[in-house]
């Protein structure tokens, strides 16, 4: 937690609900975190953990019947979770950029790249058509598209997957937003292109001082890119902290399990570790800690009470192991144990 100056983005006790036939379900439950300018926060977890919903909530694009039921989202200290549509619209694109997963479907097939770029630029920046086009070409060059001058007038289907994702990134940065929410930006790309896009994101982040909330289920990408990591499970934030700490010394058993499942260069292991069982459906979240059925270190309290984020050495983890009141709670020692006997 980089304390001190007011964070760029502050999310407090965010709660997203969806009414269904079987009553209202909580898709994002009491999530709090913050993001400093220029910082890259990785949000990781299995699909269905609520990471995309958190991103959508921040952009204000939750599609009905999903809705923000509690908590606050502040951008530069100003609440943006309860703004009327028009005010929120002005923020989107100008202050918060977005990158989606599938480049093939993110671009309008019937508009040229020029049309889509200049339209976004002129929506937010007071530029003439030619100035907007200049800026668009500059953006394309910046995201690494050769011959931008000619290719700007091409249609999306004339670009490869990777190139299209570069265009998407250009679009996201068109109005120079301070924050970009990237929802699985590399998932649809093959590995080689993935690395280029990751490098591009990191470079742009640094150069423009843009904070990036990188949502992914790929721990490899997180390890390489993020400054800090937030791990989500069944709609809850189970651990958040600096990436080196988390990777090297995960506190929450689930995070540890995740780390086990990353292949590392030079490590000889017949099979990657796997966490047994599956993440519970939103309708079947067990009482207490949601991870308890799959947690190797589970003990009775885990099944009864829901742990809040407790400070643990180097990162916060929502796990009773780190509650000082738990007998013999030598967090670090216990933590070693977790790593050792994970199957």
């Amino acid at each position: 937690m980089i304390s001190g100056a007011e964070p760029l983005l502050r999310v407090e006790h965010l709660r997203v609900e969806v009414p269904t036939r079987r009553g209202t379900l909580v898709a994002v439950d009491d999530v709090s975190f913050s993001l400093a300018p220029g910082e890259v926060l990785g949000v990781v977890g299995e699909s269905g953990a609520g990471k995309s919903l958190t991103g959508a909530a921040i952009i204000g694009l939750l599609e009905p019947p999903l809705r923000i039921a509690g908590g606050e989202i502040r951008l530069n200290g100003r609440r943006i979770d309860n703004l009327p549509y028009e005010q929120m619209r002005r923020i989107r694109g100008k202050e918060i950029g977005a990158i989606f997963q599938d480049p093939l479907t993110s671009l309008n097939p019937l508009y040229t790249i020029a049309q889509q770029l200049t339209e976004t630029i002129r929506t937010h920046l007071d530029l003439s058509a030619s100035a907007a086009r200049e800026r668009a070409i500059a953006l394309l060059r910046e995201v690494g598209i050769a011959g931008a001058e000619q290719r700007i007038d091409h249609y999306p289907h004339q670009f490869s997957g990777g190139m299209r994702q570069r265009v998407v990134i250009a679009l996201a940065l068109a109005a120079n937003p301070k924050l970009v929410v990237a929802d699985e930006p590399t998932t649809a790309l093959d590995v080689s292109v993935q690395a280029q896009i990751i490098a591009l994101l990191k470079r742009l982040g640094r150069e423009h001082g843009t904070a990036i909330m990188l949502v992914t289920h790929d721990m490899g990408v997180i390890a390489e890119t993020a400054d800090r990591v937030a791990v989500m499970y069944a709609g809850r934030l189970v651990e958040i902290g600096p990436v080196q700490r988390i990777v090297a010394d995960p506190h929450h058993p689930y995070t540890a399990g995740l780390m086990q499942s990353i292949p590392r260069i030079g490590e000889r292991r017949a099979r990657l570790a796997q966490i047994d069982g599956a993440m519970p459906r939103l309708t079947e979240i067990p009482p207490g800690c949601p991870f308890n059925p799959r947690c190797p270190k589970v003990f009775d309290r885990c099944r009864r009470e829901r742990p809040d984020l407790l400070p643990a050495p180097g990162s916060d983890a929502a796990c009773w192991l780190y509650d000082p009141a738990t007998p013999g709670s030598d967090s670090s020692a216990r933590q070693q144990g977790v790593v050792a006997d994970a199957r």
Partner: protein
Amino acid sequence: MIAFVVQRVIQGVLVMLVVALIAFALFNYVGDPINNMVGQDTSVSDRARLREELGLNDSFVVRFARFVGNATEGNFGLSYQQARPVGQIILEKMPATLELSFVAALLALLLGVPMGIYTGLHRHSWLSQTLLAVSLAGVSLPTFVIGILLILVFSVELGWLPSFGRGPVIHIGWWTTGLLSLDGWRAIIMPAITLALFQMTLIMRLVRSEMIEVLRADYIKFARARGLTSRAINFGHALKNTLVPVITITGLQLGSIIAFAIITETVFQWPGMGLMFIQAVTFADIPVMAAYLVLVGFFFVVINLVVDLLYYVVDPRLRLARERVAGA
């Protein structure tokens, strides 16, 4: 592109030939014109002689060959009913049908598309629901009943609009138009509405169905995420993608307006080709029927060609593929 058009024109001619062939096969079953042509007391032998001279006893292939032979010289024979060249009759009747179809198509599009968009955008608003339900009335009531009801209200009761005919027409060369005079427009309103109602409902529902689908696309979500105005999203991105598939369906539907015109023209005594065709069927006026069918066949070939061309013009994905193929 030129090669494509030429190819389609050749296919078009083929279609018209097939239409004529089938038409003549059909004419054995439309009844006997002789009885309508000759006086009551004409003897059986005279009737047989006339039938022989008109070539009605020949096999339909022979009659087809004769028809095509003459048609190539622009001679479509004389109408049995009016003893006038069919070509002349069709030229007289064509403007009326084309103008009516054009106005009806315009009406259907100008009302159908916006309503389709509105009901697509605001799916659950009460206005959408009423529009959907009311428009259906247009489809489920027979054209005939709608026509008569309009006449009863606006001609008989209110006396605002003429109940029949095309009003005063202005001759421009062989073309006659009613659109240049107020009375001409007063005469065309009701028939156009009756004709347009069915197409409008169909177009509206197609645009709605397509619009709903497009609004769920990722690029729309991305557009919203980029903070574009609702107008830019709905009427720019969404609408353009909606209209591409709708164009082919609409093109086809407007083509069928000509077939639909038959009933509307009968109700409003609109002097078009539809009315001419119905009179030809009840009189078994074969030359007129043959010419009409071939002409309608030609219209459909042209309409389909235009729609296909439009398809390539509007959808860059196909256009560029086409050029690359053509270029390679």
